[in-house]
């Protein structure tokens, strides 16, 4: 662990009281931040400081702090989850910054993800897309066939797994110049499309999920690939191509 001295930083943070009120960037100073601290620990220190000064601490989503729950969601210095690849905000460490740096901290920006306070956004649109088709329609009775009854080609099983590692954080939407949710939706569509269990209702699934995605007000995909670069789980836009295929197959060919 590096034995560097503490960092002194200028933070520009988006503050917004509620969804209805207007927000603005505010400037704060923090000092003596250990380079071994995580970014969110730095935010904790800022908040302790604000509480001490009698101000309201900055609200932000976080929970697991190990890069898997998908809660944390900060747009740091112009990138979702900040600099660094395949990490979430909570996995970003202060050693990535230099003493004296100015850091911009903003919420995800998308019409479909309204800000509800400071850095906290409402991502329930993702839940609604999931409710439209992000599942396989089997009852959880336990009376299904034996788990090994259908062998699954390892390559497909692995691809399905890779797609399934999506943590639903929304970095794809935040990074996309169009605030498109296609990486998120395609990851779920792909996971199931690649498994025999999921093929059965593949057509209906993709139609329904795309429909709700469109209704929620996300933008369209321009294939810039920003999402896959910023995705903390490195999910590939290959999945978007697969979703396009699945969708066209489902709608143009029909039943």
């Amino acid at each position: 662990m590096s034995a560097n001295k503490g960092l002194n930083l200028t933070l520009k943070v988006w503050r917004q009281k509620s969804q209805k009120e207007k927000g603005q960037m505010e400037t704060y100073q923090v000092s003596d931040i250990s380079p071994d601290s995580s970014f969110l620990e730095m935010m904790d220190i800022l908040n302790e400081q604000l509480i001490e000064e009698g101000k309201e601490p900055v609200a932000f989503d976080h929970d697991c702090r190990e890069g898997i729950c998908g809660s944390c969601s900060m747009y740091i210095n112009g990138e979702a989850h900040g600099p660094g690849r395949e990490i979430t905000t909570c996995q970003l460490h202060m050693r990535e910054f230099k003493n004296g740096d100015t850091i911009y901290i903003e919420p995800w920006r998308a019409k479909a993800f309204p800000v509800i306070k400071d850095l906290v956004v409402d991502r329930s649109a993702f839940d609604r897309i999931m409710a439209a088709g992000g599942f396989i329609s089997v009852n959880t009775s336990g009376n299904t066939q034996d788990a090994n009854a259908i062998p699954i080609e390892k390559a497909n099983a692995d691809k399905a797994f890779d797609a399934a590692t999506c943590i639903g954080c929304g970095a794809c939407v935040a990074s996309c110049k169009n605030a498109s949710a296609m990486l998120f939706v395609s990851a779920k569509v792909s996971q199931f499309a690649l498994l025999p269990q999921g093929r059965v209702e593949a057509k209906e699934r993709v139609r329904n999920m795309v429909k709700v995605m469109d209704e929620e007000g996300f933008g369209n995909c321009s294939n810039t690939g920003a999402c896959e670069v910023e995705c903390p789980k490195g999910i590939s836009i290959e999945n978007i191509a697969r979703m396009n295929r699945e969708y066209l197959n489902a709608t143009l060919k029909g039943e």
Partner: protein
Amino acid sequence: MSWVKNTFSSSVGRKFAMALSALFLMIFLLQHFTINFISVLSKDTFNEISHFMGTNALVQFVLQPVLIFAVVYHFVMGFVLEIKNRNAREVKYAMNKGSANSTWFSRNMIVSGAVVLAFLGLHFYDFWIPEINVKYVQGDMSGLLADGSFRYYEELVHKFVDPVRVGIYVVAFVLLSMHLLHGFASAFQSMGARHAKYTPAIKKLGNIYAIAIPAGFIFIALFHHLTSH
């Protein structure tokens, strides 16, 4: 036919239609380039092909309308998507680093597209409107000049005399190149054509196409500009 409406008003359907129109444009562009390039090699062959294309019923009454539809659909939908996409993010970031994760070309298709569109306007004014005028308004389907020779080559060369026009031409094609550096491979992705083995090849082919074709057009323009004096 409500499925047609549903499909092509969906996000994925629009992507697909955009890609289809673009694909058609790219094939047309290749064809257009080939014919134009012949003008560098042989005046007569160029004239003959031009006359054939200009008077053939299939080309004139089937392909040409399709082309017009494709162009119009492509740019209208380009603007529609751009507006919709902009609306999907109402409040912009105070600090955004797009270059960290994507190419400038891919983020600015509307810019390169708009320049190409402006050029297309000029191009229509230069070639297409006079063509239509001669052929269908004046009813002269001969394709001949007063001296009895074909008019196509002369008209082509004549347009490249003016250095300003050549300059505009060059700029437009540089932007078209940028448009295609992203667009070519993107169209395949939009149509769902992606494959571990072939996609890298498509990307390479795309880069070759995106550079070679516009460069070829520029070459033709410069060639005639420099040789016409």
